[in-house]
């Protein structure tokens, strides 16, 4: 008995060690980026164009490009997501077709991001002749974030208790009225959480935009959705591997801005979820 207690202590110690092994480097990464990147963050850095072959100046065009891309992706994805999620949670029966749709979603989620890039290149850039543009990039990113959004939205819709629907039906509401006035409003925080997480993902991805939108260096801001644009993650890639002798401060600064952007969105999503759970009446 004594022996097995000792084995347990040792085993738990190793489990704890493994956990530390993950958490500590993550903490370190974030601390290092904040520590070395913070001195670079000035108004000029955020709102100036890159100068001297990206060795000085700011990141404004990249920042703007990323915002455009992310907004475009959401505008494209959200309607499809809502309809698909409503169909899956409210209308779809438990049959073969539903099973296949779910499998397709799982698969979309697992397709490597660079393959989305190839797909965007083949379909939007070459086939539809949109060229490398914000439009192509947004559509590619929009398709990439579909699976996350559909999954979270469906979960949000399904977590609305069935009794809510029964009451609505018993009052004579039609199925669509019930969905529109009862189910959707109650699922909105969940859908919002998923959407913000998707935004964060879209903002941080590089591979899908490499061939569909990203410009190496483009000091002026894009004027229409058919223009190329710089994007923050690609800019970070460029200044850390393609351009020699970039000041370390600028690299860390860019990494920090990207990290803060993405983590901030995640934080907002977590807070919404937390508030929602606290307020939940069922």
């Amino acid at each position: 008995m004594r022996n097995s207690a000792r084995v347990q202590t040792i085993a738990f110690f190793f489990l704890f060690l493994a956990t530390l092994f993950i958490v500590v480097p993550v903490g370190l990464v974030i601390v290092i980026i904040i520590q070395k990147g913070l001195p670079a963050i000035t108004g000029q850095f955020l709102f100036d164009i890159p100068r001297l072959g990206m060795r000085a100046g700011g990141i404004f065009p990249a920042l703007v490009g990323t915002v455009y891309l992310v907004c475009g992706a959401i505008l494209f994805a959200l309607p499809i997501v809502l309809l698909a999620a409503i169909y899956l949670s409210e209308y779809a029966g438990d049959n073969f077709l539903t099973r296949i749709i779910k499998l397709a979603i799982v698969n979309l989620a697992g397709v490597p991001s660079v393959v989305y890039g190839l797909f965007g290149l083949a379909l939007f850039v070459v086939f539809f002749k949109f060229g490398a543009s914000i439009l192509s990039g947004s559509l590619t990113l929009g398709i990439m974030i579909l699976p996350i959004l559909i999954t979270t939205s469906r979960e949000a819709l399904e977590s609305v208790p069935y009794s809510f629907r029964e009451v609505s039906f018993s009052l004579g509401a039609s199925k669509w009225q019930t969905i529109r006035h009862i189910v959707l409003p109650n699922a909105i925080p969940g859908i919002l959480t998923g959407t913000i997480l998707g935004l964060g993902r879209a903002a941080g991805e590089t591979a899908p935009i490499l061939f569909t939108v990203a410009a190496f260096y483009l000091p002026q801001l894009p004027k229409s959705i058919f223009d190329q644009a710089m994007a923050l993650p690609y800019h970070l890639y460029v200044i850390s591997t393609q351009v020699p002798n970039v000041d370390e401060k600028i690299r860390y600064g860019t990494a920090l801005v990207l990290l803060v952007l993405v983590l901030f969105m995640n934080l907002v999503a977590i807070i919404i979820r937390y508030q929602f759970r606290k307020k939940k009446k069922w």
Partner: protein
Amino acid sequence: MCGLASIFFVILIFLFLLKEGLAVFKTVTPASFIFGKSWYPISEPPQLGILPLILGSLFVTLGAALISVPIGVACAIYIAEVAPLRAKEILKAGIELLAAIPSVVLGFIGMVTLVPWIKTIFNLPTGLTALSGSIMLAFMAMPTIVSIAEDALYSVPKSYKEGALALGATHWQTIYRVLLPAASSGILAAIMLGIGRVIGETMAVMMITGNAAVIPDSLLQPVRTLTATIAAEMGEAVVGSEHFYALFAIGIVLFIISFAINVTADLFLHRKK
């Protein structure tokens, strides 16, 4: 109808990859494409054999799996069973945070910290090696492994655990003999999805593995993976050239690999129920 959109997109992606990728097989046979030992796409005539790239992906993936599987599963057990309630919430948030860090940021951090360390520790001419890639990718696989494995452990019926404890087993014996076997298919799925993430990862790999398209014979050599090849070369490939088609054919290979992994993992997850 929009429910069908997801099926539609999967098929659309595959069709467009096929449309552009199959053209390469006019010039090379599928066998010599996959088992060809040299990748010199811009020489004349181009040599399009992706074996070095497949091996590069395999090396990096195996390395990452060796690191991330034991640590990830151990962390999942810790979070699911051992950690006190408050610590559990914080750890889960931490893992989510790790999953959210963009891969290009991780690649950048790997470049400025890990790569020089590897170089000095192993006394190598360059720190841009398969090993650096493996370590960095292990960190990208871990959030997937931890969260899915933790879910699997969590969904084991409570009565199993209570039964084992009532028979006088220690907490560890219960975990080791009862919970782990009961959750095994879910954990297996977690591992597969983690590995899927590693194979598909592009940016971090491109930044820290050195990008040499040669057949590697140790983890301490630079390698180039399938994904990095597409990302690095597509910018230079002329639309409609053999090189362009070959990169799409690599995309097909990646798509099929991820398809196989996801379908199998999904089967494991469903068998559990």
